[in-house]
């Protein structure tokens, strides 16, 4: 704009080619988080699912079975309340709660803040229980090494087809509440087929945290992943 009278002389339109991912800053923070975890030899696992699919119970049972072999920490993401964190805290492992308020997902910056609350040099494995939501968390990388998606038999086998993005980013799908299978019309083959259309390399483990069936396969998966990280 002209300095004297405010007319448009001397000004112009400029086009800037940016070509940059909108979430680039989250992605680079996630990369930095991963480096922090790897410096300390910690495997990070990001658990994602709908509300009520059994993430917290699975974590309780997993910690009980693993704690003699691995030192575990847990980050709990919740919209409100620290009830899940309290449940995990009662197992005796270090827990940090992130209350997201209105935010429907965790992001890499929230994870960075949470890492300060852990004795990183003492940990082998860090679970992140993401906000119960099968849509938004999938868009935000955290810097963890494995994305774990839980799908419970009581939710229905159509979730992979309905929420493809969560499954697209998953490394392993846990079909949970297998003890409830007889009471549902959940078709495990269909759920696996639909999920592998979206993510061909997806590993699938069927389990029931309540009965313990399938848990050892899940624990093997975790221990293999820890070994891989350590080379």
């Amino acid at each position, binding site marked *: *704009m002209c*300095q004297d009278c405010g007319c448009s002389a*001397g*000004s*112009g*339109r*400029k*086009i*800037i*080619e*940016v*070509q*940059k*991912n*909108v*979430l*680039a*800053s*989250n992605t680079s923070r996630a990369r930095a988080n991963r480096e922090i975890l790897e410096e300390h030899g910690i495997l990070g696992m990001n658990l994602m699912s709908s509300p009520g699919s059994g993430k917290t119970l699975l974590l309780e049972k997993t910690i009980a079975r693993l704690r003699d072999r691995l030192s575990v920490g847990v980050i709990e993401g919740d919209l409100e309340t620290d009830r899940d964190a309290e449940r995990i805290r009662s197992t005796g492992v270090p827990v940090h709660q992130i209350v997201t308020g209105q*935010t*429907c*997902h965790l*992001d890499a910056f929230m994870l960075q803040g949470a890492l300060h609350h852990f004795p990183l040099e003492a940990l082998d494995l860090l679970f992140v229980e993401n906000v119960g939501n099968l*849509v*938004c968390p*999938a*868009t*935000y990388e955290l810097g963890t090494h494995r994305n774990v998606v839980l799908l419970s038999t009581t939710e229905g086998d159509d979730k992979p087809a309905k929420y*493809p*993005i969560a499954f*697209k980013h998953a490394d392993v799908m846990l079909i949970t509440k297998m003890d409830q299978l007889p009471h549902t019309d959940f078709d495990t083959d269909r759920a696996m*087929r639909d999920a592998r*259309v*979206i993510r*061909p390399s997806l590993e699938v483990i069927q389990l029931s945290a309540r009965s313990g069936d399938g848990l050892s396969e899940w624990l093997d998966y975790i221990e293999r992943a820890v070994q891989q990280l350590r080379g």
Partner: protein
Amino acid sequence: MHEFSIVQSLMDAIEAHAAREEAESVSRVVLRVGPLAGVVPHLLKTAFDTFKARSVAEAAELVIETSPLELTCRDCRQISTTDTVRFKCPQCSSLNVEAREGDALVLERLEMEVTDGPT
């Protein structure tokens, strides 16, 4: 519904570029979005209209270009593109397809009004 968070990141990028160019205003924002990006275009627009108020992009128009999902059929080898989240070969209807791309969420371009400075 994480479109508000995404637009918050978008506004940060817009403000940074506008400041670097010493722009008076931003008039057009072009975003490229794929079907696997996990965002709903009209919700992005609503969020953008909320966030842009009293910013350098107050009068800006948000243009959303779609970026397709590329499917390679493992049965008939046909390569196709789609703007929907449908993992099905249009040639042979096979579900045995490999999906690539489609998750773009890219700030492509900004158009801004700049002052050339005193001559």
